[in-house]
């Protein structure tokens, strides 16, 4: 702990020096004017979106497709993740697990880590090789990523069930599968629902931009209209995207709260509703499924096998390894700096966003209180929009003014991350310290109370939120790299575009190793801190 501050400072300085934070769009005077003109055009487009019937119909169709990609992808990922989680957690459900079973479980944990290490953008490019562009590619890419993320979360929940609490079921002599169905799964169901809904919310955001790399939905067209400079149509698409992500944000949050307090009957009903929703969500994907069957029937198995075998044979030449090693820096630096900045912003606004700080304060004048409420809602609204726009969309929008580069990527990651962390920090404080009914306002509230009383008690929760956001930022930094922010992502995109599959494989493996390595390092540090 003693070295945390100097090490953190040194890392931050290294990141600042290492990243190229100049603005490529503002190199000389002429470029500066062009950038200004494009910002003006964008703002004017946003002020006058195309609200014609044809455009609105198009946006509605694409929004339905985006929702379908997110819902079906998340559902597929949740089912596959659960199956893998069960396998990974199986040794603790057995009386004396065999060595083979333990090895299989360890391999499954590794597989889950591998699946969640790479962003859905990377998976989309890999799926693209076989299925071609379209919503099915986006669905599969999201499903693969969600399998890893939810699979590990479910697995950890299953492992954490106290053995004593399932002994009564184990004693009945059921098979391990039966013990799981009647003992462990019902215990983890509320938390699993919560994780699943949170992931669905993220999937909605990701699905709205996965079209940028050929995954269907709103993203493809948004990228296209932005490229052609048709800002009025871009604005309509952006509005559609915002409506979708904000609806997912609030809807998932309400459902999560309801379900975490719900009984067995409500959860069973929720599962039925979820099944119906998934079936309905398949409808917008039906045309794509028809096209897919044609693509698959034309697929030459030899070419597919050859592609797969090339992907499984990483290029270990010195030049590629050097490229991979050098590419590690930018995403790591982007993730570190953006997490640091987003955390600072979220802490900075907390005294104004948290309703508890306001409620606990000894009653100021009514007018002051009203202003505080207004300020709180305003800041929460800003945070809602900041996280409602996915990082990729932020990067594309900022690129108009700043050019695509690491500065824009850093800002995109920070804006989105600050929105997410503001909500998580605010909820953490408000949930824990909400005054009970009829409780009189506290003695000490305000920023002092927050810093010296509330935050130390929430340190563990907040640290976990920041760590998870850092993890997500690293994954997204790889994806932003693919759009021009440099590092491993950019190299990977280049390798895939030139069909250099062995090189792409090395770069993807490096992304994976960095992610898993950091995860293990973080866990080790966590254990050290806990001691």
């Amino acid at each position, binding site marked *: 702990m003693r070295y945390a501050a100097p090490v953190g400072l040194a890392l931050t300085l290294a990141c600042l020096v290492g990243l190229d934070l100049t603005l490529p769009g503002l190199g000389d005077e002429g470029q500066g004017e062009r950038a200004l003109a494009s910002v003006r055009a964008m703002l004017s487009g946003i002020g006058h979106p195309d609200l014609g019937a044809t455009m609105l119909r198009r946006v509605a169709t694409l929004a339905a497709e985006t929702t379908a990609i997110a819902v079906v992808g998340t559902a597929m990922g949740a089912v596959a993740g659960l199956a893998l989680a069960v396998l990974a957690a199986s040794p603790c459900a057995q009386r*004396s697990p065999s060595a083979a079973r333990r090895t299989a479980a360890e391999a499954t944990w590794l597989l889950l880590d591998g699946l969640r290490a790479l962003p859905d953008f990377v998976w989309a490019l890999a799926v693209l090789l076989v299925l071609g562009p379209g919503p099915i590619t986006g669905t599969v890419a999201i499903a693969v990523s969600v399998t890893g993320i939810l699979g590990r979360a479910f697995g950890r929940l299953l492992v954490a069930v106290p053995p004593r609490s399932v002994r009564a079921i184990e*004693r009945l*002599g*059921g098979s391990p599968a*039966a013990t799981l*169905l009647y003992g462990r799964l019902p215990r983890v169901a509320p938390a699993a629902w919560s994780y699943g809904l949170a992931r669905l919310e993220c999937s909605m955001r990701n699905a709205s931009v996965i079209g940028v790399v050929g995954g269907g939905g709103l993203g493809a067209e948004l990228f296209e209209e932005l490229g052609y400079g048709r800002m009025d149509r871009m604005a309509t698409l952006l509005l559609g995207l915002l409506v979708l992500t904000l609806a997912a944000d609030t809807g998932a949050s309400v459902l999560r709260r309801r379900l975490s307090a719900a*009984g*067995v009957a409500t959860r069973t009903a929720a599962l039925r509703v979820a099944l119906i929703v998934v079936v309905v969500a398949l409808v917008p994907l039906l045309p794509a499924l028809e096209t897919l069957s044609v693509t698959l029937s034309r697929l030459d198995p030899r070419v597919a096998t050859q592609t797969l075998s090339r992907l499984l044979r990483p290029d270990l030449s010195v030049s590629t390894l050097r490229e991979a090693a050098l590419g590690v820096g930018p995403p790591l630096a982007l993730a570190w700096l953006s997490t640091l900045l987003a955390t600072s912003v979220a802490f900075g606004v907390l005294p104004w966003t948290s309703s508890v700080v306001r409620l606990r304060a000894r009653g100021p004048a009514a007018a002051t209180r009203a202003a505080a409420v207004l300020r709180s809602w305003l800041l929460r609204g800003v945070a809602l929009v900041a996280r409602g726009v996915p990082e990729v969309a932020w990067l594309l929008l900022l690129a108009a003014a700043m050019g695509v580069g690491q500065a824009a990527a850093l800002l995109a990651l920070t804006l989105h991350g600050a929105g997410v962390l503001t909500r998580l920090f605010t909820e953490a404080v408000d949930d824990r310290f909400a005054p009970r009914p009829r409780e009189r306002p506290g003695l000490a509230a305000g920023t002092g109370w927050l810093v010296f009383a509330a935050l130390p008690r929430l340190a563990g929760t907040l640290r976990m939120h920041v760590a998870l956001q850092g993890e997500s930022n690293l994954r997204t930094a790889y994806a932003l790299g693919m759009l021009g922010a440099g590092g491993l992502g950019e190299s990977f995109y280049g390798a895939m575009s030139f069909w250099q599959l062995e090189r792409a494989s090395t770069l993807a493996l490096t992304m994976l190793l960095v992610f898993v390595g950091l995860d293990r390092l973080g866990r080790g540090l966590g254990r050290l801190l806990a001691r």
Partner: protein
Amino acid sequence: MTPALAFADVHRSFSTGRGVRGVTATLGAGEVVALVGPSGAGKSTLLRLAAGELAPEAGTVSTGGHDLATLRGAAYRSACDRVGMLTQHDNLTPGLSVLHNVMAGRLGRWPAWLALRNRLRPRAPDVAEVESILDRLELGDRLHADPRELSGGEAQRVALARLSYQRPDLWLADEPTAGLDPRLRARALALLIEHVRDAEAAAVVALHDLELLDADVDRVWGLRDGALVFDGTPETFGADARRELYEARP
């Protein structure tokens, strides 16, 4: 006839110094025994040895002719199905409806597909059987409740319903009434023994409260410091025997 449960010179110790020492006792089929003794005498250890959860350090434990601690896989699971256990807490799975909690009693007999099928969409005859058991225990209206919504007494009755549905040959109950309101204890114990008698099963019921010895049991086992110091009928378990069992040692 194979005894329902047999201990032969069983030893099992813990780092705390507690455990059981040289216990030898036999329980015949259909016999109900009350296991009594002060706290820490080894009652729970003896029950866990009988259920195969603990292996003895010396001696043998035979449940229905099987040494549970040495069995593995399907043989262990099948033997488990013949033994039912009721504890003070943690009998039920929260988040699983009362219906499914009771149905879990047959997990040892069901193949995996049937366990899955009944978890997703229970078969009508199975539901009817569970309903009739719950009705008898005045819990017919709690079929779809979450165990977290039940009172302590109701939860114990649901656990009893599960044992009735399981129909094991040997029932083990570890202070099953300890968490209940004192006024309900005698009734709860009578209900348990009534169900054991109906199922024509054998039972070992560990009791802390001596007043409960008015219950309908065939024999009494008295444990003190891990050793079996009394084995006789309730009539012979008089004031002297009780004093010897519970009196503090110098």
